């Protein structure tokens, strides 16, 4: 559905997108994850034909977005970041305008509008001025606009940005539901969002793709171990120092003490398991150990590791 190869976008004095390539297959929900300023919006604007790339190519459903932009744009339902809308139009009017603009006429337009209003739960707001709507409803109007012409591909730039938790949950549910019949590319800087909604994640940082895989695989294969929590009956300082001396242990954090019991969180190097070493150490020193538990890496760990460490390549 989307084929991007070697896409580069340079602004004056900075490269926002640096030779990225990726594909999105029909039917997938793909999350575009990256911290602010990573280049997500820039990539999306190129994909939707709003700005051209400095070099590289992008195909949408077999149409080159630069050469056949109108044909490609016909296939895309796009919701820009911050959902720009006309405040002085009514919801119904706005959707009607957008439907006509996308080439729908007569009954087709009417049905499209009715369906979009239904799907996005806007029936009560259909005659309201857009300017009076809450942020959550504005987002839904943007979404209704994006899917009004029943496009194969939905591109949503930070669809839950600025919503309260209830609204976020509703929007996510809607996205999941839409995912059954559309290919979706959503950009976000919120991890739990991709973990919950996406089949595949592309992690973008400083204009480069750092990883692209299913959320599960990312967690499994990436060079990150989780952390281990232990509760031990020993003098806190001595125990901490001893654990730190175990090879491959990177960090020992004292969490709390409860009488003679102390809780530690231990972080070790990626892909290693130091639980055995800790147990051995406790035995050698005759420290009582009442809990040892390894927490699997979360996507958050992956994300932090990928986007905070200086790029290795």
């Amino acid at each position: 559905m989307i084929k991007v190869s070697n896409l580069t976008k340079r602004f004056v004095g900075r490269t926002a997108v640096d030779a990225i390539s990726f594909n999105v297959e029909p039917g997938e929900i793909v999350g575009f994850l990256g911290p602010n300023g990573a280049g997500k919006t820039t990539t999306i604007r190129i994909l939707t034909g709003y700005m051209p790339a400095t070099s590289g190519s992008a195909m949408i459903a077999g149409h080159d977005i630069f050469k056949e932009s109108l044909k490609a744009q016909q296939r895309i339902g796009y919701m820009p970041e911050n959902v720009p809308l006309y405040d002085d139009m009514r919801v119904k009017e706005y959707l009607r305008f957008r439907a006509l603009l996308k080439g729908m006429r007569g009954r087709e337009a009417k049905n499209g509008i009715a369906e979009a209003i239904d799907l996005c739960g806007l029936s009560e707001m259909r005659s309201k001025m857009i300017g009076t709507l809450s942020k959550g409803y504005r987002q839904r109007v943007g979404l209704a606009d994006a899917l009004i012409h029943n496009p194969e591909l939905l591109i949503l730039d930070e669809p839950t940005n600025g919503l309260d938790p209830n609204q976020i949950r509703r929007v996510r549910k809607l996205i999941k539901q839409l995912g059954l019949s559309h290919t979706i590319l959503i950009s976000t800087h919120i991890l739990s969002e991709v973990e919950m909604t996406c089949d595949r994640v592309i992690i973008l940082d400083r204009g480069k793709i750092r990883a692209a895989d299913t959320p599960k695989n990312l967690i499994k294969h990436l060079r990150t171990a989780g952390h281990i929590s232990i509760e031990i009956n020993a003098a806190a300082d001595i125990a901490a120092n001893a654990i730190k001396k175990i090879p491959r242990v990177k960090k020992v954090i004292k969490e709390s003490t409860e009488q003679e019991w102390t809780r530690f969180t231990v972080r070790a190097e990626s892909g290693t398991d130091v639980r055995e070493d800790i147990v051995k150490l406790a035995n050698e020193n005759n420290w009582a150990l009442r809990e040892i538990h390894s927490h699997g890496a979360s996507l958050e760990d992956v994300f932090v590791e990928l986007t905070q460490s200086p790029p290795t390549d």
Partner: protein
Amino acid sequence: MAFTITACVLLGIIILCLLKFLAGGTGLVLLGKELRSFFFSPIAWVVLALVMLLNGLSFTAALADLREGERSVTLTAYTFNSIQFWLAYFFIFPVITMRLFAEEQKLGTIETLLTAPVTTIQLLLAKYLAAVCFYIILWLPSLLNFMLFQMNSTDDHASIGSLAGSYTIILLVGMFNIAIGCLASALTKNQLVAAMTCFTFCLLHFLLGFILQNLSVPDAFRETVTHFSTQIHVRAFIDGLIDTRQIIYYTSFSVLLLSITYHVLEFRKWKV
């Protein structure tokens, strides 16, 4: 000969652009939306009311003056040469053109427009034509004044040639100034900046003849520039002299300004 060729080329460009504009009906949808936003905003009605008021005043003043005795000018010339008329005139353009692109750029809706299957030329022409339509509607009430007068008067005071000339030049200068306004609005996100730029350049063009009168510049230069002076064109047209040279001049400069606006929008599209 060269003149005819210019006219033909110009006509060709205009027809080509209009065809592109009408393709698929998208242009008309945009035009409808633009007209709607004119008439749903209070600005349009305020401008309409004020222009009617000032036109009415200058018309009444002209009538009063003519009643005093024989004059060598027509009623039309009197009306359109009054100070009130020109004062009101240059406030129209900034007000009707400032929002066109500046607002879309401020709201970010230019992104939703240009990522829909819409070409920049359709967007540009829709906005321009909407402003021109509104401008034409603005002058209809004043035309009514003359028609009412005509119906009630026994003689043929408002000579038809003079009337036709006046409205032709008003339309021509209007199209030109609206094109200036479009360009100014495309250059900025800020409506006030767009309005000021438009106002300044419209007025500057109008006053070209005036400004040079007191400057010490070579006579040849002064004479050349005077050809561009709206003032002089207006006088000729009000006397009923419909000059095709002027028609070509204003149309071609409108086309030129619109094509610059087009490139500004494309550049924006590439950069924002």
